């Protein structure tokens, strides 16, 4: 019973490099989310998806792209990493219906951009 799995757990990038963060959930949830967590800032929503093939922007989408080609996977891409994107990234998922507000989080990916 893995829940929400994020890979990788840690990554160091140089400015301008690109990378993709993978989120996988095995709970058959419709909704998936990407957040970033910065000291003193709480968690801020980057992008989210309400189903396979659909994505939408959250509060801080600039510099990120996402894709939801399969229901169980939600990818977060950084095309040209910047030091301002140094953060801890969390993926979450939730089911449809009234339980949609119960979000299950992964353990996070710690990203440093030098």
């Amino acid at each position, binding site marked *: 019973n893995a829940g929400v799995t994020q890979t990788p757990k840690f990554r160091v990038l140089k400015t301008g490099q690109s990378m993709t963060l993978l989120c996988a959930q095995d709970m058959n949830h419709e*909704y998936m989310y990407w*957040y970033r967590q910065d000291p*003193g*800032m*709480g968690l801020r929503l980057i992008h989210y998806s*309400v189903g396979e093939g659909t994505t939408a922007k959250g509060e801080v989408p600039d510099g990120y792209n996402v894709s939801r080609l399969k229901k169980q996977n939600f990818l977060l891409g950084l095309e040209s990493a910047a030091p301002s994107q140094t953060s801890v990234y969390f993926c979450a998922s939730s089911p449809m219906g*009234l339980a949609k*507000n119960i979000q299950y989080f992964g353990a996070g990916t710690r990203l440093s951009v030098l």
Partner: protein
Amino acid sequence: QQQVKQSPQSLIVQKGGIPIINCAYENTAFDYFPWYQQFPGKGPALLIAIRPDVSEKKEGRFTISFNKSAKQFSLHIMDSQPGDSATYFCAASAGYSGGGADGLTFGKGTHLIIQP
């Protein structure tokens, strides 16, 4: 624009004490108010949640108090233990009964330490 304001940023309480964390919101469309608990190196986990049609909800040692007119809600931890030491986030979302999912708007978090 911060839609959910959380205080205090940090809190130290002796074992057995009752830490209280407060949150205030602005968006009257919010209709679901969860609290998340996060331990170091882990993702947040849902602790307890409330809807605005009730003024209080208890689950074990954790209680949410909700004041709709003041647009405020708070978390109380009864008989606090060192194992409760964690970062606590309040959050809010709109459209509880709707078909969409817009994510959660989080407060900035409270780092709670329970001293033995």
